[in-house]
């Protein structure tokens, strides 16, 4: 396991230039957009502000410094865990971002659970029963699943399950109650389930043709054991890869689902901050999202070693 520790250490070190690069890109983009950050801090009516007072405000918020210095200051503070203060709420960015993480993880994990619970079985069954109506039906559902716009799917679920039949609350966080998690998880998870089902099916079809599967059957093993122990275990690499990519998206790309279901996650925070040009908050939120994404990818890479003993980390 020493090699895994070295691998993790190297990957974490490699994250540093990636993260610095991302913050730089965001910093440049936010400053290239026309507009004086002072208006984001105060508002348009402050346009008639006395120039001396305006200058004082700029100095106070560090907006009087040349841009490269502002950026270096941001980096130095960020290393010490200080991401600055939001222009809008005037509270520390770390606090504003941290309070969203719970909701973001919950929705991401809920959606991942939906995706795996539906996608894996559907893909396996479709492969095993290849060419039958089960295969056709599940792949049709999968095609529909990836094609449906999330927004529309969410509204549809909300309308039927919450408004019409009143089984579930239409939207909101509900203080963390589980029933509030169901609809957004389904909405976010269903398209991913569809992707997983398709990848699982093709990976399984590939493996089911292999000699060792025929051998296993010839040994007289039960079909269930053949499919799960011998076939699925060997089909996992492409499946884990796609789940890994999707998991990153589930954690960080749920803006639409969060908006439709009024879920207080990171995505909405980011979109709102961009709209209001709350630069410190945009920087902070993007940085945290990038870290999350990188960490998920790291976990996936480590998982490979457990799934496939042939993979070594050097």
């Amino acid at each position, binding site marked *: 396991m020493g090699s895994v520790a070295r691998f993790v250490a190297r990957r974490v070190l490699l994250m540093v230039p990636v993260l610095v690069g991302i913050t730089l890109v965001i910093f440049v983009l936010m400053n290239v*957009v*026309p*507009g004086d950050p002072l*208006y*984001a*801090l*105060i*508002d*348009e*009516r*402050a*346009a*008639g*502000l*006395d120039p001396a*007072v305006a200058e*004082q*405000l700029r100095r*106070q918020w560090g907006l009087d410094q040349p841009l490269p210095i502002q950026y270096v200051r941001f980096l130095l503070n960020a290393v010490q865990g200080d991401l600055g*203060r*939001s222009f809008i*709420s*005037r*509270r520390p960015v770390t606090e*504003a971002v941290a*309070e*969203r993480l719970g909701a973001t993880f919950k929705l991401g994990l809920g959606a991942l659970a939906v995706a795996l619970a539906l996608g894996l079985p559907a893909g396996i069954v479709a492969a095993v029963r290849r060419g039958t109506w089960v295969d*056709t039906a599940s*792949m*049709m*559902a999968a*095609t*529909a699943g990836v*094609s*449906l716009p999330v927004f529309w799917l969410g*509204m*549809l679920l*909300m*309308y*039927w399950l*919450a*408004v019409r039949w*009143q089984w579930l*609350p*239409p*939207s*909101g*966080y509900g*203080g963390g109650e589980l029933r509030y998690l169901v609809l957004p998880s389904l909405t976010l998870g269903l398209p991913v389930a569809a992707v997983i089902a398709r990848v699982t099916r*093709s990976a399984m079809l590939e493996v089911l043709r292999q000699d060792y599967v025929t051998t296993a059957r010839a040994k007289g093993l039960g079909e269930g054991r053949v499919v799960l122990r011998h076939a699925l275990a060997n089909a996992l690499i492409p499946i884990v890869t796609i789940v890994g990519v999707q998991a990153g998206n589930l954690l960080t790309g749920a803006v639409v689902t969060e*908006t*439709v*279901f*009024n879920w*207080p996650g990171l995505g*909405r*925070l980011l979109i*709102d901050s961009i*709209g209001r*040009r709350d630069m410190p908050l945009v920087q902070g939120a993007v940085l945290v999202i990038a870290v999350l994404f990188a960490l998920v990818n790291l976990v996936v890479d480590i998982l490979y070693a457990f799934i496939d003993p042939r993979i070594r980390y050097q």
Partner: protein
Amino acid sequence: MQHRWWPSLAAVFAVLFAAAGLAGAGLEPAWAQSAAPAGGGASVPQYGGTFVKSLNYGDPGSLDPIVKNEVAALMVVMNLFDRLVKVNPVTGQIEPMLAERWTISDDGLTYTFYLRDDAKFHNGRPITAEDVKYTLERLSHPANASPRINLLVGVAGLEEFQAGLAGEIVGLQVVSPYEFVIRLKEPKPTLLHDVGDPMAGIVPREEVERLGFDFGRRPVGSGPFKFVSWRSDDEIVLEANLDYWAGRPYLDRVVFRIMREEATRDAEFMAGNLDAMTIGEAQYARYSRDPFWSQHLIEVPELFTRALFLNNRVPPLDNVLVRQALNYAIEKRLIVERVLSNKAYPATGPLQSSSPAFNPDLVGYPYDPERARALLRQAGYPNGFELEVLATASGSVVVEALMGFLADIGVNVRIVRLESTTLFERVRAGDYMAAYYSTGGELDPISFLAARLHTRNHGAAGNSTWYANPEVDRLLDEALRTTDPARRIELARRVEEIVVADAPWVFLNYNKAVMMHQPWVHGLQPVPTDIDFQDLSKVWIDTNMRRSR
């Protein structure tokens, strides 16, 4: 894995088709139809119950009164914090609040406020004149970066204080714990409105200093409601202040649900989870025709004017004949009906129909394309010209509707779609030809007109069309010094007449704000400044009716 494409596609179409058909079935729940009609049920106000209202504009970020000049924050803040005086949200009249009464010296320079002695902050401490002074100085201090940093312009000693030359504003004087004086350098007829602004809500110094920036997250005020909790982008909860000097409010609790998405608000409303929400054009088109819900709509012309703002310095728009031609060319009523689903009122001039100075006899510019073409010929543009119009994504829908009318008189419109911050940036800088947006929010007609039409405010300060008329300047200056309300209205109307003739804008329409509520909700008011500015101490719920659904 080459696939049988067509059965898959067929499946997609089948699902879309079925679902779309079903979703079209309407959003009305069965219980709504059986509920009593408006006006039914109890008519005597009841105590108790929780009122849930949508907050449509995103998370307010901070509930410190001085921090954000946004509807999202102020609709909550105004119910948490008392001011020196209250501006009646419907009539615009000044009413007592923390000050029971006040006197104004004959020269209009000294205002003396007599504070009530039974008002307390939510932490139990009595409010005194020291708190008023602290609050107003905090609002004006540059270190606090308040958008209303200039609210008290005209008060003696403000400049010295803001420049750091004085430790206090000398014009704000604590005479005794319950007597407070404001001294002005020159008469300021809007002073009472200014100290009645929600952003001038009185704050307790000890809590501000104890909580620091967190004061905006856990505000302590003195209003009819107390702060309970706030989950960002989810909900803000308030509860009744049982010790309120004017008596406790009817409601036990108020929940503001922060919901940006219109369709989600619709679903929550139809599920009975929202008691009231401000609605948009698409919703209005649907609900105003519904026999049940049309009785549960509160409508008011908002103090916002939508116009095509013309850069009066740029040829050919520097020619008054051209500007008049553009005004004659557009059939405003048709745009209100077809594009805005009747959720607006056609405009005759800059002042809205709910403005105290609105002139119902003003004719403005009736639709007359013949006359418009004649004016263009007279101005030397018989073949028209090209007009570049800045608009936001939502605004460009209206501009597209204008294009046909303008093309009809030979003016070819080119729309430039911009995000709103960029649009206003260019407008303030004068870097535009024409721009479509909405402007307003002030009850006082003189403040509204002066900010947008006085030459002193050219550019970023508000007159971004660079309109200039010395007579208008003179009348506005006189009005700004006048305290007599009748005289001010007379002056506002004279200014409006001149402005309409000069046509610096193409006057299009005034927004109709609409709030929809459940049948058990009573006491919501048609507030023209912004329909979301509801005084919730007036609202009550027929709890029996709500339970029976």
